[in-house]
């Protein structure tokens, strides 16, 4: 494991101390692709997101780590637009997107994959990806010509399927794929929109070790081409992939740093990594 981390030392030089006051981090806004400022969301008495600040820089893989119930899914929901924050702002590429609906954010370049596999089960595998390509090309109010006959949909879709290793299943109905293949298809759909930022909600969830390492390989191959915010339980995968890690506990972001710094962080050890003490 430590060998894997050494491989990413180059990227891990850029460590930024986590800042508590939102005002001091506001000026960083222009550098980051995605900036979360003072984000707050509570459900009744339960504070799911407690004044979170977070930056994802262009090209980096930023992981969000946290125990169950830390508010990872709520945070992600606020980034995709499914959950409205009570207070705070989300900036993408310098624009305030806090109030934008889900589909508008997607068109701005935020792609996502879901924790629970989310594909279009009635469509073929190829159609799944072609649709995502189609949406990125503009509106779909074209009623006459055959969509799957169009080379500008078919070819990019086919290429994406080759990339994630599903090319031989192109004509299968998506609902009939295996779990691992579903995850691969998810990534292909998310990539089809040429996102600048990919929000990955536990992409390794429910996978066997083989599928899981395939997914790590796939995500590694995407590194540098697309920025990623990775929410993941699998600590090993997170340390293998992430340039920076933010640790979320009870809705609060308690630390942000390179994998080494997170390993060395006392607060994180207590709150989360404590369970894997011998490992570190």
């Amino acid at each position, binding site marked *: 494991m430590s060998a894997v981390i050494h491989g990413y030392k180059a990227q891990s030089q850029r460590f930024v101390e986590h800042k508590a006051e939102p005002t001091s981090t506001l000026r960083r806004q222009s550098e980051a692709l995605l900036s979360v400022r003072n984000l707050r969301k509570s459900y009744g008495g339960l504070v799911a997101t407690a004044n979170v600040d977070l930056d994802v820089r262009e090209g980096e893989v930023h992981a969000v780590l946290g125990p169950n119930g830390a508010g990872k899914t709520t945070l992600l929901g606020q980034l*995709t637009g*499914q959950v409205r924050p009570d207070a705070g702002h989300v900036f993408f590429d310098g624009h305030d997107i806090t109030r934008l*609906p*889900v*589909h*508008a954010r*997607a*068109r701005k370049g935020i*792609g*996502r994959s*879901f924790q629970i596999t*989310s*594909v*279009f*089960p*009635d*469509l*073929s595998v190829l*159609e*799944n990806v*072609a*649709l*995502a390509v*189609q*949406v*990125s090309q503009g509106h*779909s*109010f*074209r*009623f*006459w*010509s*055959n*969509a*799957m*006959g169009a080379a500008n949909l078919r070819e990019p879709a086919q290429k994406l399927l080759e990339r994630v290793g599903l090319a031989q299943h192109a*004509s299968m*109905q998506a609902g009939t794929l295996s779990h691992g293949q579903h995850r691969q298809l998810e990534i292909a*759909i*998310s990539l*089809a*929109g040429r996102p600048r930022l990919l929000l990955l909600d536990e992409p390794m969830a429910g996978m066997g070790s083989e599928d899981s390492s395939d997914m790590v390989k796939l995500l590694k191959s995407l590194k540098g081409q697309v920025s990623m915010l990775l929410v993941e339980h699998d600590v090993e995968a997170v340390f293998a992939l992430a340039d920076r890690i933010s640790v979320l506990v009870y809705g609060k972001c308690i630390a942000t740093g390179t994998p080494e710094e997170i390993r060395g962080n006392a607060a994180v050890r207590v709150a989360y990594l404590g369970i894997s003490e011998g490992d570190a």
Partner: protein
Amino acid sequence: MNNRKFGSPSGIAILCLILLALPPVAVAMGQPYAVTFMARVLIFGLAALSLNLILGFGGLTSLGHAVFIGLGAYAVSLMMQAGASNGFLHLAVLLVVGLLSSLIIGAVALRTSGLAFLMVTLALAQLIYFVGTGLRRFGGDDGFSFRGHADFGGLLTLSNDTSIYYYILFWIMLATVLMYRLLRSRFGLALRATMGNSQRAESIGLPVFRYRLVAFVLSGTFCTIAGGLLAYLTQFVSPAYMHWSRSAELLLMVLIGGMGTLLGPIIGAAALILLEEGLAMLTPHWQAPLGILLVMLVIFARNGISDFRVLFVLAIDRLRAKAKSPAENEAQVGTASRKALP
């Protein structure tokens, strides 16, 4: 391929030929009633076909689609009563009425989905139904009938059942061709995607509401035209046309014929109307055996009559496989059956 379920062009062509040949054949056989009967089947087939666009491909169960039939029938009947018999004018008014009413109902109902969508469409449709029963000047509950025939500026007069039949046939053929193209188009792909997983559709950048609304408006407008055609055929209109039970019948037609298939709803309309009339001849309590048949259909053929076709194809595959060498049997049956399933 799953494109198969949209129906093959050759299948559509054969059906068209049979329907084109029906009136002269029926008259020659001394069964002119068959023309009126089939005209009615085709009208409800057209309505069920339109409903299937949002039900079978959009995943939206509307329990208020008969309201569009009623609105179309009222529009044509009122114009005929006022002496406006120009068919082109009727068509223009039907389009306006259909577009506006479905736009308003759709914009409200599509704020919801699932069961709530069903309830909202039901509520709005019943609202309009009760407005219809309150129209004392136009017969209230009893509706009213009109005299005269629609004409198309000297080109064509819908003066008998055969001409009305062909006019209806023209519309259902047009609707089928449009639907066939639409389902394969970019719009069709987007709509089918919103049915399977609307959350995912939003997250790849598809504004689901807009696509559903356009589908709803298309669906409602074709239903309105079907309503106008029904008025031509019966020369009568009453609020009963838009009672919620009529909407339920439309749903049944789609279910019987096969949701999400192109021609299924037309076949379903024929089957349901035939069953209703046939059973009514046997017993005054025809609803009881009809109900039992429908329950059995739902249990044994989830995809409606289109399932029987699949069974038929499977049986033929099996017979063919038997003729081949035993070694090939397993693989042959396996692949053939997988292809045939929609």
